[in-house]
């Protein structure tokens, strides 16, 4: 096991990783920008190093500065958290070159995760269903019409240079595709500097269901069940849960096997997430492998009893898995609300500032992963995620009740947060029955439509 770990991140995930290291008896080094001197991760770590100015590109994304901090503190390993350098293959390689263990997948895994078309081909060859798509670019309308006829409408025209939900046009039928195709190409050129577009089958009213996987260096791969991440706004997840109210035991078993097959096909190592899109009829399609620990990992931890950060570290130190999903006897239900410093009544405008009053909830079945404390000044430079509130109970209904109680108890003033929105969702009868798609949140947000006309 390692004696010292540098955490190349900030916010709640840096705090989360430091705590796991403490449990493992590993000394910790926090790195921080000039805007984060008073951040909780800096206070909790055994050692700390300033790595540059407030702007992330000069601090949390500054590979040289982070490696220098690791050398100066004689750290043995570097945990990248999520975001920032977590999926940067060159950073993982640089760590290896300088003699630091990168806590995460191999540089090859990271390179492939970034090359979505190639990853889909490899996974499809392993027998995992993928969304029918042209993969390569489609240059001519006739070609687009022929392919769409083959896979069936509705289809999406997607910009090859796009991502994160940008550069997508949905075509319900041939007539619309005829009208949209050339416009989509022009738009792609303007937005991404590249007019290449491809066609993909559009899954209407989908659910987003992902499987947590763990893999050791010997090629043992297991899954730890699914996470339901369907409640999203503009492709950003808001509420996650495990298990999924949609999955039946046979479906879970099939998807779990497919998740392992996908991870095996790409020779995956360490913790990862295999994402699927599911249609209303329960047909599921592989989307991508996220090669990192994910924001929503705690819901899996609560139902399986496995500390995923400790597992990441243990696997990177060369240990074997030594158990499988069935051994864990998963139990109960976990929900997570991502609390953001945003105003849900004002189109989710961010809300930085000093936290003058902070009173977190507690009690049975409540977990709070956060870097907040009373008096903390929330910097304007970074992500608006300020807290992950997680509830757990033996049943889904129980977990919802606990979440509601915890949300009501939570005081974070005077900044605006998304807590009021989540309170409405917990009371929603469709949410209560687990009936929703990725469009669910829209009914709570009439103002989102106005923004689009802007």
């Amino acid at each position, binding site marked *: 096991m390692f004696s010292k770990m540098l955490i190349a991140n900030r916010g709640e995930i840096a705090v989360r990783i430091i705590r796991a290291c403490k449990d493992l008896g590993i000394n910790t080094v926090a790195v921080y920008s000039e805007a984060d001197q008073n951040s909780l991760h800096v206070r909790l770590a055994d050692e700390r190093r300033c790595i540059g100015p*407030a*702007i992330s590109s000069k601090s949390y994304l500054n590979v040289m500065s982070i490696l220098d901090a690791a050398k100066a503190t004689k750290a043995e390993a570097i945990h990248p958290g999520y975001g920032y350098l977590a999926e940067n293959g060159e950073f993982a390689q640089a760590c290896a070159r300088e003699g630091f263990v990168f806590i995460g997948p191999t540089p090859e895994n990271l390179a492939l995760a970034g090359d979505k078309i190639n990853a889909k081909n490899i996974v499809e060859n392993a027998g995992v269903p993928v969304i029918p798509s042209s993969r390569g670019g489609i240059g001519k309308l006739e070609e687009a019409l022929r392919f769409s006829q083959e896979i069936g409408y509705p289809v999406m025209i997607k910009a090859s240079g796009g991502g994160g939900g940008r550069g997508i046009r949905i075509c319900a039928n041939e007539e619309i595709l005829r009208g949209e195709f050339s416009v989509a190409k022009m738009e792609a050129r303007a937005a991404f500097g590249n007019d290449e577009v491809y066609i993909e089958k559009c899954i209407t009213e989908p659910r987003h269901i992902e499987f947590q996987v763990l893999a050791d260096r010997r090629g043992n791969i297991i899954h730890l069940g699914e996470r339901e991440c369907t409640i999203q706004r503009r492709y950003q997840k808001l509420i996650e849960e495990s298990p999924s109210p949609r999955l039946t035991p046979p479906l879970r078993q099939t998807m779990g096997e497919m998740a392992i097959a996908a991870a095996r096909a790409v020779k995956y190592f360490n913790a990862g997430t295999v994402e699927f899109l599911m249609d209303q009829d329960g047909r599921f399609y592989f989307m991508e492998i996220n090669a990192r620990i994910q924001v929503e990992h705690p819901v899996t931890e609560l139902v399986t009893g496995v500390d995923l950060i400790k597992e990441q570290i243990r696997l990177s130190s060369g240990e074997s898995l030594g158990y499988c999903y069935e051994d864990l006897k998963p139990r109960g239900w976990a929900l997570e609300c991502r609390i953001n*410093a*945003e105003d849900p009544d004002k189109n*989710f*405008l*961010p*809300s*930085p500032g000093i936290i003058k009053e902070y009173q977190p909830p507690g009690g049975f079945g409540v977990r709070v992963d956060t870097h907040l404390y009373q008096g903390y000044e929330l910097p*304007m*430079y*970074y*992500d*608006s995620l300020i807290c992950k509130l997680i509830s757990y109970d033996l049943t889904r209904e129980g977990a919802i009740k606990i979440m509601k109680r915890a949300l009501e108890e939570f005081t974070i003033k005077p900044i605006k947060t998304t807590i009021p929105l989540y309170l409405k969702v917990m009371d929603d009868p469709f949410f209560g029955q687990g009936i929703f798609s990725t469009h669910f949140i829209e009914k709570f947000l009439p103002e989102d439509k106005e923004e689009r006309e*802007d």
Partner: protein
Amino acid sequence: MSNQSSATKRVEVRAPMSGIFYRKPAPDQPPYVEVGDMVGKKQVLALLETMKVFQKIKSPVSGKILEVVQENEVPVKDDDVLFVIDAQS
């Protein structure tokens, strides 16, 4: 200003919240506006990035840019003056 026939007045455009002020839509592109430019009401003058979210700073009036108060890519505070516009009615 007094020699113009139409009525004019100085209008300050302020930051709606703290954030990083961007005069350009992208690093390799020219600024949205320069001093002396005529702008229309609701025309985009700059971007403000707060907690990784970008919002457009739009002109509240039609008129001429008299002053660009802040440098490109600097942090600004809530209510800081960003532009001064000679409003024309």
